């Protein structure tokens, strides 16, 4: 918009070119300013998800799972269990909603291994195939061994293991987290 336009100043009086230049600078400057105010405000508003300061969730982040320790057989098949927790979605708080699923497998009397059922490749839900005794992703055929290690080159990393604790003898407590797909490292995704 602020292109110099030499023809314009040719027929003006001698003082004109300088005044014309000043007018151009002012016109362009003020024009940009009045346009920038709504545009920049709108952009900052649009970037709210990035600029937002997160609220601390409180507690240690562990959830009690709706399954008792005894329901899991030692060295049995992994059990797919839904993770139920409060979910904040913009202005609403949904109480006790399923927010994901985890595979739980008891490997010893007091030891449980947990995997997030999201495939680290591109986030599809992983199945367990009991015939082959491995985890299998129906989207792009990622496979993982019972201990979660990747068995082909499709996923970027092993299945995402989660922290589990056995409390009061029979309760299974889990720290549920989602991780970014596609990366070789486990990078947590903010829950809300």
């Amino acid at each position, binding site marked *: 918009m602020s292109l110099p336009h030499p023809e314009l100043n040719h027929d003006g009086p001698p003082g004109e070119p300088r005044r014309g230049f000043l007018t151009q600078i002012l016109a362009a400057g003020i024009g940009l300013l009045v346009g920038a105010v*709504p545009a920049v*405000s709108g952009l900052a508003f649009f970037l*709210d998800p990035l600029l937002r300061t997160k609220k601390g969730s409180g507690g240690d982040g562990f959830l009690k799972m709706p399954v008792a320790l005894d329901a899991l057989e030692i060295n049995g098949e992994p059990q797919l269990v839904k993770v139920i927790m409060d979910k904040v979605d913009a202005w609403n708080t949904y109480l006790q909603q399923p927010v994901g699923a985890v595979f739980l497998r008891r490997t010893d009397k007091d030891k449980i291994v947990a995997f997030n059922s999201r495939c680290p490749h591109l986030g599809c839900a992983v199945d367990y195939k009991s015939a082959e005794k491995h985890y299998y992703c129906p989207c792009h055929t990622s496979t993982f061994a019972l201990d979660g290690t990747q068995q082909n080159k499709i996923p970027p990393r092993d299945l995402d293991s989660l922290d589990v604790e056995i409390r009061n003898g029979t309760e299974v407590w889990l720290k549920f987290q989602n991780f970014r797909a596609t990366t070789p490292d486990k990078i947590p995704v903010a829950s809300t």
Partner: protein
Amino acid sequence: MLLRLAERVGYVERSTRNYFNMNALITWLDDRTGLKKLMHEALYENIPGGSRWRYVWGSTLIFTFSVQMITGVFLAMAYAPSTTTAWESVYHIQHHMQFGWLVRGLHHFSAQAMTVLLALHLMQVIIDGAYRAPREVNFWLGLILMQIVLGLGLTGYLLPWDQKGFYATQVSTEIMGAAPVIGPQSQIVAQGGPQYGHHTLTRFFTMHVMVLPALMIAFLVLHIAVFRRHGITVPDPDRAPNATFWPDQVLKDAVACLAILSTVLALTIWKGAELSAPADPSEPFSAARPEWYFLFLFQFLRFEWVEHVTKGPAFGAIYAPGALMALVVAMPIIGRWRAGHVFNVCAIFALMLGIAGLTGLALYNDSRDPDFLASVNEAHRDGERIRELAERPAGIPIEGAISLMRSDPKTQGPRIFARNCAPCHRFDGHDGTGREIVKIVKKGDGTEERIVEKPTATDLGNFGSPEWIKAIITDFKGTFAALENVKDKDNPNAVAESSKHFLEGEMASWSTSHAQRWRVKENEPALSDLVAFLYSQGQRPGAAGMPDEASKRGRQIFETGKLPVGDFESNCLDCHSLQPIGEDKLLGEVGAGPSLTNYAGDRWLREFLQNPGHEKFYGSSNAMPAFGERLTEKELDLLVRWMVGNND
């Protein structure tokens, strides 16, 4: 790097000083797009007689429309049109999202600025005779744009789904329904059903963000194209040397836009875009008014003669504005004659004056209407209260924010009081919601007078508080003085028997005969101890954390009647009964005077309201209706919780 690449392929000439050669790039682009000619046409439009401030109105309208487009697109990314999410998403935008208040404020106030600028632009065009041949068609295009802008204002007002927008827009759609022939059908179509609901919002939203803006852009392109074809209307081409649009007129336009933007920003920062309480079709909203630029129509519809012309609002809201609009449409034709132009200028001034006058009258009437002012106050209170409720940890439930309002004692209590208790009682002199109880009396000369109705029962503004308990003990007659306004059925000058039970009853005479004791300085702490004891029995939230010692001493006085100076002639327990909190044994006997167990607390008040004539309350001397049957359980709960101060 790009520059190097461009140089290598020969698109950019290598300059001696080896920096970016703008002209070469422009030439390259121009060869392929005709950019230079386009820019030249856009920027170097000739303005005979030089740039002038009076030409800025069109540009400011384009500017405000651009602001609306930009802010509107961003707002639409956070808005959710349905009856349980519209208000909630706007609330989230306003109070939780970064700069949400700013973007919404810009959108809200720019919309209003646009209406003002529209009126100024129209007046400018008519005064300068810019509608005359060959510019008639462009004048009509402008009028179409004006309708679109008003349509945008109307549809946008509903979208926050707050009480204000909901009730104001309902008037508009009712007017639509009053239109001849297809009125009722078009109303149903516009609303997406016979009543307001999800589809009213989805339809208004689509109109507001797609249909009307698309039409606006289409007509704006036509408007500007035709304007450029005929050039600017110059009243005085010889007043100064010719100039071009860029940069002379652009600077003036930009400064005007800056002034508008500053005003809009100032309003956004100091006033802010209002969001009243969420829309509730079951809750009347007497503060409903259209957006201020439609107030003149609102006022016009309030004249009785307007309503009588067609036995309905069709004349005032459709025919009369339609006829005026037709007059404006005909102005280019009328203006062909010199006298016609003068007539047009006079007509537009008269019209604007009329609009200003009606708007002023509407504002004036509202400013001296106590009911309207009370409603506005109530609306503000509700707006603040919903914010408190929405900020609680549980947040906004999925049923929508309105469910918070409906189950809130602090909001509903005063309304239930106003409907059920205020016919006899008052609350700090008003009906609980802030309105006076008045009757309108027509005087001999035809004028009306508002007379404040006398209460016939006690003012309950401080019911159950320590002050209330103290007043009952020390000045029973004064506390219940309003009962004197209940007159005998047969003798309007005599106080009714039912009131005498109280005003000349045992408690009244006890209070009178003991009044002297409370004036003794040594007895002052005893009184406050006694009050503390009775108040603690109500277990109100206000009593939490009060010292136990005082109420223990108060209990001694309550049971024994012993004062530092001059004991009670008859003890409280001689007439009243009381089962102290957490104890099994009832002190005294149920019968003579009202039970003081949990006095003025949640349980006491609940049982009392259900049946004040029960033997443990007023018994046979009761004159108050029982509300057990009149109020639903939920209403009783909300009323009681509000009155005892348990609003959480």
